[in-house]
């Protein structure tokens, strides 16, 4: 940077001094010369190629000679200097430093609870969009610049600070707010197990109380993560096998699970009940193994078709990829009830199920979808169940992130009967409609619900039913359903409407966005709460309150 600037200064100096020394036009018998200032002015507009004119008089030959020389002398260093300075500002190191500083500042300014999401692939994108809809703040760290650009182009409600950096580096995690008092958790959702492991370890070391969710595709990584206390390890294949089993024996429970952990506002897929009988499983990788294990637990016999049995450790299976009719014949596709295409190649999976459907049109088809970009093919094919790893991981993360009460509810729900789940679903559909509802938790304490808390501590009796009324019209009920009550660390499923509220209660609610907006009014405004309780309107201003007090006192005294 020094050379161009010095070149400019020196060339200007020579040109200006020369021009002021050159003899000018002869005026009134005297040779006029340009002053230094005039020379500087002329050279300025010459070097920058503006070019006004010859002032104050037309130049003499000597001056014009010098001007010609100085044009070439000054213009070239000028452009060289400008070019150099502009390229300095475009220096990638500088840009990176500025971006990182801006990111760290944006994170530092957050004053609501937020989650750090590492990895903005398909899973990350889904999760971020769901959290954003749920009004939960997010910070994203992703190592590929293209994906960060995609994030910036998306239309999110909140401003999401995003950094393109390797999340393995503890420095990056610290800048993303690992030690920030408002950080509520870290989700390690990258495509590589080792990176997820590194993120989990860093998070647990630097901030041990922080909730860590990590994706682990391999068993050893999962075991490794569990050994130092990762809060939730998500293995999409194991989860899917588990969900498939749930679908077989408790469809209502599965539906409820999907519904409560979906992206708010999206529609529910129609349920499909997998038949009991003999199933063919193509592909015995992690996915296949999990499916086979779970199906066998449900007493469903399976026939495994695997192209490389030595690699995957399959003892008793039919060798082949499953895409040819011959292999499927051998596996007995004509009298099977279901087929699972679980290889890691989308085209293979589609080929398997197309061949199978041709041979047995009544087959129940479960297909594994690896990449989102193949979505049109899968949509068109319309399998009975399509498994996408990123959906499963995102749903599982949401279950833990939306509220710890939701995770509690989902695990308690598993031990209930299918009939109970179906009844709850019909109640929910009746209240909130067919789209995925919003799920959130409220806490009755001084910070989050001042009016309610104060009323309770002054001895007023308030039931859950009061809370469910619309603060703008107490005869209307809000569109929401209470799912879980946590009192003194004791959870109660589906609390009754006549339950008396107590300070310290936490309630998990599920309902329409309009209900979610109305509840804070009931919780924090004295006026709204008293209106709901007994229909009286507390006057707003100090003056009227004093006046109405005087009147009511007089009436009490009997005057």
């Amino acid at each position, binding site marked *: 940077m*020094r050379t161009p600037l010095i070149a400019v*200064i020196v060339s200007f100096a020579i040109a*200006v001094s020369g021009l002021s020394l050159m003899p000018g036009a002869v005026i009134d018998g005297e040779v006029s010369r340009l*002053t230094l200032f005039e020379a500087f002015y002329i050279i300025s507009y010459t070097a920058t190629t503006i070019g006004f004119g010859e002032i104050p008089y037309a130049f003499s030959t000597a001056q014009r000679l010098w001007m010609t020389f100085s044009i070439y002398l000054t213009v070239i260093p000028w452009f060289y200097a400008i070019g150099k300075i502009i390229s300095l500002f475009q220096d990638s190191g500088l840009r990176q430093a500025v971006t990182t500083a801006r990111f760290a500042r944006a994170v530092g300014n957050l004053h609501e609870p937020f989650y750090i999401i590492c990895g903005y692939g398909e899973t990350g994108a889904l999760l971020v969009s769901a959290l954003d809809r749920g009004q939960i703040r997010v910070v994203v760290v992703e190592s590929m610049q293209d994906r960060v650009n995609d994030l910036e182009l998306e239309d999110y409600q909140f401003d999401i600070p995003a950094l393109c950096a390797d999340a393995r580096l503890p420095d990056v995690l610290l800048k993303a707010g690992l030690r920030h008092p408002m950080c509520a958790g870290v989700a390690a959702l990258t495509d590589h197990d080792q990176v997820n492991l590194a993120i989990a370890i860093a998070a647990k070391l630097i901030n041990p109380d922080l909730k860590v969710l990590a994706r682990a595709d391999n068993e050893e990584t999962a075991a490794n993560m569990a050994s130092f206390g990762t809060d939730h390890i998500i293995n999409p294949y194991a989860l899917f096998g588990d969900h498939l089993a749930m679908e077989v024996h408790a469809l209502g429970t599965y539906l409820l699970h999907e519904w409560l952990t979906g992206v708010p506002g999206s529609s529910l897929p129609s349920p499909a009940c997998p038949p009991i009988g003999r199933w063919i499983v193509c592909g015995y990788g992690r996915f296949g193994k999990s499916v086979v294990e779970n199906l066998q637990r449900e007493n469903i016999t399976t026939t495994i078709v695997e192209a490389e049995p030595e690699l995957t450790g399959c003892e008793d299976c039919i060798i082949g990829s499953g895409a040819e009719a011959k292999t499927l014949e051998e596996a007995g596709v004509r009298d099977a009830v279901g087929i699972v295409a679980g290889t890691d190649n989308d085209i293979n999976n589609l080929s398997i199920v197309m061949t199978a459907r041709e041979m047995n049109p009544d087959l129940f088809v479960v297909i594994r979808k690896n990449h989102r970009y193949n979505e049109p093919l899968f949509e068109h094919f319309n399998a009975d169940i399509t498994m996408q790893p990123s959906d499963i991981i995102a749903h599982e993360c949401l279950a833990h992130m939306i509220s710890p009460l939701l995770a509690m509810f989902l695990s308690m729900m598993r031990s209930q009967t299918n009939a109970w789940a179906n009844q709850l679903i019909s109640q929910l559909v009746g209240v909130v409609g067919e789209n995925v509802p919003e799920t959130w938790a409220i806490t009755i304490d001084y910070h989050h619900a001042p009016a309610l808390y104060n009323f309770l501590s002054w001895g007023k009796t308030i039931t859950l039913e009061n809370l469910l009324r619309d603060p703008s019209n107490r005869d209307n009920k809000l569109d929401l359903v209470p799912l879980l009550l946590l009192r003194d660390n004791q959870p109660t499923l589906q609390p009754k409407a006549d339950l008396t509220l107590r300070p310290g209660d936490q309630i998990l609610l599920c309902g329409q966005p309009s209900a979610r907006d109305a509840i804070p009014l009931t919780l924090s405004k004295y006026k709204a709460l008293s209106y709901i309780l007994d229909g009286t309107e507390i006057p707003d201003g100090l003056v009227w309150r004093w006046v109405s007090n005087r009147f009511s006192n007089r009436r009490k005294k009997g005057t």
Partner: protein
Amino acid sequence: MNLEKVIFGFFIVLALTLNFGYFIGDMDNPAHHHVYELYAAIVVNLIATVLKFGDRTQIGAVHLATSLVADLQLITAAILFAAVSGTPSEATMINHVVSLSGGALLANIISVILLIAETVTLRR
């Protein structure tokens, strides 16, 4: 024999000397203050400022600061001179031009003192 230090020292001392040369003489006598010397002082001061960029030490920061002060004062002096030269008030206004260059002189002196201090403590 470090060429970079030679050039650095050369320009700093040259800036001081040119500035001093312009400043010295009766303040209200324009004949004592040749405008070309002011011009040369400005040019060399600018070059010295550019040479001081990029030094991240404390002493480098103060060097740059003094140079910027000197530049500011000298350029203001030049602007003032350009405005009043040729007009009848030149005789009185020349005082102001010279006093501004005196301010720049002090800044250059500080810069040279810093240079001397740096050289003496280095000893290699």
